[in-house]
């Protein structure tokens, strides 16, 4: 009738485990390592995924990026045939067509990129001139640290003004104040009106470009000064390229609108561009986010499977030791039964022991796993320091680890489950013993 209070059973279980403390610690090691592995793995995966997500979001989750692409076969043709101008890419007509076909597209930003040499006094630097419009900032989170961003009037007047990316500003002006200085971009002089905050290298961005090594100028100025032909002298041999627009970004109001709009844009470009020479590309950052999510789950599944195997091994270990313990304590079981213990009292006694062991192992595993998750970026940073490897991609991907509550809950419930699963059979064996025979056991 009266069943035992759980605190009593728990106290008894803990007391029994403390009879052989060394054995108890060894028994929970398997669970400890398994849980530690799952927590650390999930933290690393989560960290990488968050970092990549941020990079994708930098491109804008509600954006569609239409990029110009050099058609592959004509590229080889042009290098062999010097002086032949290669015409490709997006046109202002494309931009207009996109704008008029998609409702709710808040901004369409035409942009042009031209590789040039930037000069200030004796300092020279290969940079990209980025011809753009004032509302470019609405699409991308761009932060001005000094001066100002391009204004509509700059565009109208085709002014020779420029806003510098953060690293370019540092390279050209290591000691001076850049604002108001005049620099040369190719053949023309431009006045620096602003400097941007670092945007980071867009490894998730189009073609892994560097957003900080760029000089931004009004789009109109770019068209006039650089024309539609780019003469690139950087490769030794000369090559001409004709490209009206390198990139169009379509910003939509919500994520749901992104995919239908991408289909419309693809349809438009397919219709108006030569299908044999595909010189455009529609990039949907949102798709990358989904792909990222899938890759992340792949790693999560992998990590969890490895952890599951070690938990299984840990569970079998607990079960073996519990079975040995049940045999060893046969006499005790007989005594307890003779003194009034019911079968289910014996079951709970042994089950509590395995659950306490595995839960404790799990809790310590979580603790060690969190320490590892916290220690890995730190240790890698030290290693990078010693080996003098800069913050390279592989290392920087591990520069952050995130322990989610979900991972901790998963790890703890898995260890409790293992405790129950590994304890059921030994506990059942103990409870099924005949009291008289158990009492006679030597």
């Amino acid at each position, binding site marked *: 009738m009266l069943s035992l209070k759980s605190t*009593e059973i728990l106290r008894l279980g803990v007391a029994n485990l403390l009879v052989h403390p060394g054995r108890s610690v060894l028994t929970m090691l398997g669970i400890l390592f398994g849980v530690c592995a799952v927590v650390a793995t999930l933290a690393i995966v989560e960290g990488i995924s968050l970092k990549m997500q941020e990079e994708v979001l930098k491109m804008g989750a509600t954006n569609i990026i239409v990029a110009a692409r050099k058609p592959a076969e004509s590229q080889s043709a042009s290098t062999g045939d010097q002086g032949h101008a290669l015409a490709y890419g997006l046109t202002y007509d494309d931009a207009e067509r996109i704008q008029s076909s998609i409702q709710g597209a808040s901004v369409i930003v035409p942009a042009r990129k031209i590789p040039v040499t930037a000069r200030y006094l004796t300092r020279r630097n290969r940079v990209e001139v980025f011809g753009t419009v004032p509302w470019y900032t609405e699409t991308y989170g761009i932060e001005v640290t000094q001066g100002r961003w391009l204004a509509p009037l700059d565009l109208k007047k085709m002014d020779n003004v420029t806003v510098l990316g953060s690293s370019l500003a540092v390279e050209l002006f290591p000691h001076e104040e850049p604002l108001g200085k005049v620099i040369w971009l190719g053949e023309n002089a431009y006045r620096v009106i602003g400097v941007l905050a670092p945007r980071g290298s867009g490894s998730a961005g189009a073609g892994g470009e560097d957003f900080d090594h760029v000089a931004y100028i009004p789009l109109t100025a770019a068209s006039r000064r650089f024309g539609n032909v780019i003469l690139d002298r950087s490769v030794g041999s000369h090559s001409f390229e004709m490209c009206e627009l390198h990139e169009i970004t379509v910003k939509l109001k919500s994520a749901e609108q992104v995919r239908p709009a991408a289909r419309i844009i693809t349809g438009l470009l397919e219709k108006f561009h030569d299908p044999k020479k595909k010189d455009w590309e529609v990039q949907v950052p949102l798709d990358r986010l989904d792909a990222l999510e899938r890759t992340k789950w792949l790693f999560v599944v992998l990590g969890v499977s490895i952890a599951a195997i070690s938990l299984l091994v840990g569970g079998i270990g607990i079960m073996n030791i519990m079975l040995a313990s049940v045999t060893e304590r046969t006499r005790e079981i*007989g*005594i307890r039964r003779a*003194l009034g213990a*019911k079968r*289910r009292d014996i079951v709970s006694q042994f089950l509590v022991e395995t659950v306490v062991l595995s839960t404790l192992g799990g809790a310590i595993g979580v603790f060690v796993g969190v320490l590892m998750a916290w220690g890995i970026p730190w240790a890698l940073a030290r290693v990078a320091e010693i080996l003098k490897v800069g913050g390279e991609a592989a290392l920087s991907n591990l520069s952050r680890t995130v322990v989610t509550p979900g991972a901790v809950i998963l790890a703890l419930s898995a260890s409790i489950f293992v405790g129950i699963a590994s304890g059921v059979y030994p506990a059942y064996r103990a409870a099924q013993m005949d009291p008289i025979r158990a009492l006679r056991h030597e």
Partner: protein
Amino acid sequence: MSLARLIELTKTYVMGADVVVEALRGINLSVEEGQYLAIMGPSGSGKSTILNLMGCLDRPTSGRYILGGEDVSDLGDAALSEVRGRRIGFIFQSFNLIPQLTALDNIEVPLFYQGVHRRDRRRRSMELAERIGLGPRARHKPMELSGGEQQRVAIARALVNDPLIILADEPTGNLDSKTGKEILALFDDLSSRGRTLIIVTHDEAVGRRTHGIVRVADGNIVSHEKN
């Protein structure tokens, strides 16, 4: 009304396909409240089997067992455990204390399974340890106690739940004669306080201290002498 009544009780062990051991062949016995009985007989005659049945550790093959007015012959495992915990006090030849528990903790085990509160358990076990003369040794583990002390702990444990009947299977069998006498003196004392006791023994001298001797041979009661 008898405290315990065994009616045509039999116990048969089926060992294999055609090997059957008839340990008890129809036992009839009445135990009155306050009685102190000795069960005597040669080895293998069925004494322990009788005690196990009376202690509800086992169920009879046939016959009835009435304990405290209740027929317990057909109770299920959980109900039998309950009866053992509340109405029976066991004392064994080999003491059967739990090695990792202290004397006090051992005394409390039956109360533990009845859900008695820790504080009440401790009060009761201290009281009993005092009464059986364990003194400061009560906080020691069985390994650190002498045989006599261990059997005293077992007696205290048999008393802790205030049972209807105390069953002792050769309680002095593992003790030297001097210590055995001390334990028997404790039994006499319990009997004089009105406890109902059944003791299995080989010692005629022990038998003479009791109210009666039940002689068993080959699974049958052959005589029931009153002292």
